[in-house]
């Protein structure tokens, strides 16, 4: 191999880590220049990721492997327990040349710290580092003058490191480790302004809700371990990995039935937590308390897509369980519709975008749940375009927030297009992409998902209603996106007093990344749709090259055209309705809200998930905690304190002896001598005479 993969694969995560460490150590002295280490290292990572992608594609096309193409580099072995598990039924042993044989009687538990490169990893790396570099550059302007400037960049570096590791590792345990690491970074960055009670509460909520998902994820890993006898993706040490070449090239090498469904549902629970899917979506809107670049990077473009990545990576496992596919699709469709409905009535621009993110992630899950090659790649396609246009929308919203002095409530400002022309245009591009208006990126990727789900619906009728949920959500998406757009940028120019007299367009550090992202929001969808590169590349990933992934030909068919026509009509209708309702006075919208009051009430209250969870989980837990606190404070502490009170009581009795009178001390001494004489001389003498 002429090209040195290991160096690239190590350098891509190493750069951001180094940047984070340097910033953490020297940030206090770097002060306003603290962004340089992190920005430079992330940009370096992005360049290396693009190089890696091109080389991976090149190698994949010339692959001689059985299933797709992958390369791994083992850095070190983290833990090794020999003979940890009696070989389960599904374990496969390998000869030196990789031929499947019976496994050894007992299998070792080992966590190989191994990085991998294949098409899926390379694409994720490219997306993550590319968006991260733009967001980091944007943050230079956005976070300027903040007290925690260097802290912010240090966290961002740490996050990019964790995220690149998450998509690079080739072991489920390490996936879990970095899954938690990105969660930690998310927690730190949501609670970045730690003096603000809402930010602390939001960070805590994100962390706790994610624990529910991670609990399922961990159980899923245990089940994988006892089912397959390994936790590596790849083949190593004479044992076939869960997603390795040896297993993928066999048919029927995967567990079926209840075991497969259980594994997949537990992994889905983990993915639901991280990717904010129903019913664990409640943390994401609150996470908007963090700085806006964080919302763009972590809570829109990268971290929340970890669940999508994980399910895509585990596609072969899902292929073994039709029920799990249905579950993924149904969760996706519910989340998709729910997010869309809630986003319609929110007044906080960032909240609208947060619910829109939840909804769009629902689309991706819907695509993954349809479980055909076309739908899974469409889900990944949507992940990619969504990363661009949602980051763009968030950063534009951040630009508005920055100019408005931290106010993001759409009732407080309007008509900003005259004050902020660049932000207006970039938001428009992002909005058109999100609404799915041709030829913007979102149109192609969303229609790819809907088309694939529709095609699947021809075989399995369950998917037809899900398809319509997606379609109607596309309509809602257009309405809420342009509702936000019109309320913010059109109408009479109003500026909240917090913005001061000098509300102005943001600095160039912020507008240039916006323009770059706007370019990609316009072109990335059409480019990948016409060239078909993304599908081609993803098809070379071992997990997706697996022969059990169904590949019906849906591309360019008549059904596809119908889907595209309907969705375009819906998107344009949505934009039109939003324009009718929210351009000019909002009396029509207010009338609608009054007519459909129950629906409006539900949507405005976010379907009262927070309240329901409060009653069902938070309050019982709180009561239990109170009970424990009472027992601890009164019963356990009471006993301990009682024991502690004995010596002071005895001492208080004896204390009166210490009167400070010299004569008394002398007397006490004499009494002591008398007692000594009695015990040593008189008492033995008496005892002797008694005998």
């Amino acid at each position, binding site marked *: 191999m002429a090209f040195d993969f290991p160096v690239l694969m190590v350098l891509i995560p190493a750069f951001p880590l180094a940047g984070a460490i340097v910033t953490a150590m020297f940030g206090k002295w770097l002060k306003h220049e603290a962004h340089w280490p992190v920005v430079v290292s992330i940009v370096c990572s992005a360049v290396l990721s693009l190089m890696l992608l091109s080389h991976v594609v090149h190698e994949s096309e010339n692959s001689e492997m059985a299933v797709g193409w992958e390369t791994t580099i083992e850095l070190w072995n983290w833990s090794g327990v020999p003979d940890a598990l009696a070989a389960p039924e599904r374990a496969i042993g390998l000869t030196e040349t990789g031929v499947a044989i019976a496994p050894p009687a007992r299998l070792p538990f080992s966590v190989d710290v191994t990085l991998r490169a294949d098409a899926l990893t390379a694409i994720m790396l490219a997306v993550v580092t590319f968006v991260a570099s733009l967001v980091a550059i944007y943050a230079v302007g956005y976070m300027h003058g903040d007290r925690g400037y260097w802290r912010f960049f240090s966290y961002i570096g740490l996050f990019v490191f964790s995220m690149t590791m998450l998509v690079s590792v080739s072991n489920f345990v390490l996936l879990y480790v970095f899954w938690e690491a990105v969660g930690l970074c998310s927690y730190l960055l949501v609670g970045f302004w730690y003096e603000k009670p809402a930010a602390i509460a939001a960070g805590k909520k994100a962390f706790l809700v994610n624990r529910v998902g991670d609990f399922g994820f961990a159980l899923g890993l245990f089940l994988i371990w006892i089912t397959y006898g390994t936790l590596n993706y790849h083949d190593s040490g004479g044992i076939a990995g869960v997603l390795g070449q040896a297993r993928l090239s066999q048919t029927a090498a995967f567990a079926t039935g209840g075991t497969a469904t259980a594994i997949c549902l537990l992994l889905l629970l983990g993915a639901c937590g991280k990717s904010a899917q129903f019913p664990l979506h409640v943390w994401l809107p609150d996470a908007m308390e963090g700085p806006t670049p964080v919302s763009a990077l972590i809570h829109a473009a990268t971290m929340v897509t970890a669940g999508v990545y994980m399910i895509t990576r585990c596609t072969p496992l899902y292929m073994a369980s039709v029920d799990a596919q249905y579950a993924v699709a149904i969760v996706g469709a519910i989340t998709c519709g729910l997010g869309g409905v809630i986003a319609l009535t929110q007044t906080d621009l960032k909240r609208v975008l947060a619910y829109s993110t939840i909804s769009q992630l629902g689309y991706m899950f819907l695509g993954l749940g349809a479980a055909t090659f076309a739908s899974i790649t469409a889900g990944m396609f949507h992940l990619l375009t969504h990363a661009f246009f949602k980051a763009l929308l968030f950063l534009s919203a951040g630009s508005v927030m920055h100019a408005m002095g931290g106010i993001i409530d759409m009732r407080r400002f309007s008509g900003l297009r005259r004050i902020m022309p660049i932000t207006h245009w970039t938001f428009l591009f992002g909005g058109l992409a999100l609404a799915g208006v041709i030829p913007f990126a979102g149109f192609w990727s969303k229609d790819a998902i809907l088309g694939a789900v529709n095609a699947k619906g021809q075989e399995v009728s369950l998917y037809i209603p899900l398809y319509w949920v997606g379609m109607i959500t596309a309509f809602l998406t257009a309405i809420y996106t342009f509702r936000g757009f019109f309320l913010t940028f059109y109408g009479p120019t109003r500026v909240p007093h917090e913005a001061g007299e000098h509300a102005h367009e943001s600095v160039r550090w912020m507008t240039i990344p916006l323009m770059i992202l706007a370019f990609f929001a316009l072109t990335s969808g059409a480019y990948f749709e016409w060239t078909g590169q993304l599908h081609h590349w993803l098809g070379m990933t071992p997990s997706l090259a697996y022969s059990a992934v169904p590949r019906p030909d849906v591309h360019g068919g008549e059904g596809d055209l119908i889907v595209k026509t309907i969705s375009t009509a819906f998107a344009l209708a949505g934009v039109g309705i939003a324009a009718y309702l929210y351009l000019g006075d909002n009396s029509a919208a207010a009338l609608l809200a009054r007519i459909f009051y129950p629906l409006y009430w539900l949507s405005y209250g976010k379907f009262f998930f927070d309240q329901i969870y409060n009653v069902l989980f938070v309050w019982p837990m709180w009561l239990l905690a109170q009970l424990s606190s009472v027992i601890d404070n009164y019963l356990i502490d009471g006993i301990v304190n009682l024991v502690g009170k004995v010596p002071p009581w005895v001492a208080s009795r004896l204390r009166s002896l210490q009167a*400070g009178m010299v004569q008394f001390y002398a007397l006490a001494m004499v009494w002591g001598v008398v007692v000594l004489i009695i015990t040593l001389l008189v008492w033995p003498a008496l005892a002797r005479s008694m005998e």
Partner: protein
Amino acid sequence: MDEQALLQNYLIVGALLFGIGLVGFFSRRNMIVMFLCAEMSLQGVSLSLVGWSRYHNDWGGQMLVIFILTVAACEAAIALAVVLTLFHRSGKLDIAVWQQLREDNQAAFVDRDLVELERRQQVRWPTLTPAGIEPEPDLDQDTHRTHI
């Protein structure tokens, strides 16, 4: 006089000295008197040592007494210096003045009799007609005079 009777006499005198010293130490509050009492008990012990020494015909005891005398002399020097310092501090030789070593929440010892004594002194007794020159009152003596 036989040896036993001699020893008995020594021991009786020693015990008496010790007992008187002890009682004096307990009952008197003048620091110098207390010190003298302590010395007296010490000498009582020394005397019994001498008695036993002679009885057993062992000169070690008498040698020990020489040591005790020496040590007592040193101790007297130090003790009197301490007493003098304390006297300078408070202007009184009363040991009851120095009761700070007691526990914080213990009530201080208050000398009620002292108050009555002072009041009694203010009673004017009939005096003879002064004859000759009235002596100058010694102020120094008044301030340093103790009532003990």
